[in-house]
């Protein structure tokens, strides 16, 4: 059974996708994978699902822990490689890209490169892959982070790998932030959390969007649907 935090993150990411759009996730992205399949199974049957394995609208028989796995190929009628994704984005046809960062800051900038000074970093991170490009060119950026704490959500990243240029959201186990006036503001609070809890775990003075609301509560049927989509609970690897 999926935990409350897992279910709210899946449902929140899913609801941000619109029917008829394109959506892409890269590697190490079980939550986006399940969220896209969830959206296709609910409000967005015509969402085009693209991924780093290169499949287009796959119908995976089992969901892999690794999202760059051949298990994401069954059902695809063509292969659409990562280089094609970049060109699609440059042409303005990539509607949604899922990205994350070891650090994410108040302005929605992500750090996937270095902790500490660049010349002598304390930690050398894996790098941003195409995030610097895709954050400029996708129409909507969906950031997600399973750890909502002050180490991850910082006032200012020590190194900016990529910065947002379009509609940007950040989904965490506690809430949804939306980039509003160049600042990530609380746009939706999960019903089991509170502004006080969000503030205590966020590295900057939080503000809300004008239309900030509670995330719609999930019913037992919503949990059952998530369970059907991800029966093996692969998203647990992210928590």
């Amino acid at each position: 059974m999926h935990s409350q935090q897992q279910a709210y993150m899946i449902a929140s990411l899913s609801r941000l996708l619109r029917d008829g759009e394109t959506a892409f996730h890269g590697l190490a992205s079980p939550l986006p994978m399940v969220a896209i399949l969830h959206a296709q199974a609910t409000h967005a049957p015509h969402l085009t699902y693209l991924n780093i394995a290169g499949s287009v609208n796959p119908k995976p028989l089992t969901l892999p822990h690794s999202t760059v796995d051949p298990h994401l190929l069954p059902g695809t009628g063509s292969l659409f490689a990562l280089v094609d994704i970049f060109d699609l984005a440059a042409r303005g046809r990539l509607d949604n890209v899922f990205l994350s960062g070891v650090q994410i800051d108040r302005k929605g900038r992500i750090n996937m490169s270095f902790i500490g000074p660049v010349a002598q970093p304390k930690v050398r991170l894996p790098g941003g892959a195409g995030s610097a490009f895709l954050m400029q060119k996708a129409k909507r950026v969906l950031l997600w982070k399973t750890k909502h704490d002050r180490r991850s959500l910082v006032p200012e990243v020590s190194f900016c790998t990529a910065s947002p240029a379009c509609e940007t959201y950040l989904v965490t186990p506690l809430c949804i932030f939306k980039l509003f006036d160049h600042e990530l503001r609380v746009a939706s609070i999960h019903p089991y959390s509170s502004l006080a809890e969000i503030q205590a775990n966020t590295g900057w003075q939080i503000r809300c969007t004008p239309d900030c609301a509670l995330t719609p509560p999930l019913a037992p049927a919503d949990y059952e649907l998530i369970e059907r989509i991800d029966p093996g609970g692969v998203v647990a690897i992210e928590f």
Partner: protein
Amino acid sequence: MPLTSLGESHLGHLHKWQEVADPYTGEHYLAIPAIQLDWAIIHVQQADLLGNARIFGSKFEDVLLARSARHVLITCEELLPAYAFADQPENTDIPGLLVDCVVYVPHGAYPTSCYQHYSLVEKEIEKVVSFTETESFLAWFDSLQYPCAPSPLLGSALVQGYLLKGEGGAENA
């Protein structure tokens, strides 16, 4: 396609990327230097003795890598005779003319996956990344035992053989 800006990203400054003007529109674009690869090492499902290689499933950047590297080393699950792909050359992803050598290594992608041959083994990957000393890696490597048949093209004594194109070893092996 080219990009006009990386926004606030520090990557351009870090790598000292320059801008160039489009001679037609005057618009400025980032000019990112090409990565100069000495070698590309690419594991494929099928290769022939001429170095022609077929990739099944996702190709990722492998086809580009083979075209940009100065030298290409192909490792393969299946080694086939020269001209084995001549009936369907359009399915060859990496042309042998770009390939320096082919190494017959069944299970060569283990413990990661090779489409249609084997899946990744998470526990083994965790083990490999946990090694901090060369000795422990080598001990693990030596302990691997694969139920792989020797390639008839390389003779029965060789389970893992290699051939260098142009050394006359290929067709004679």
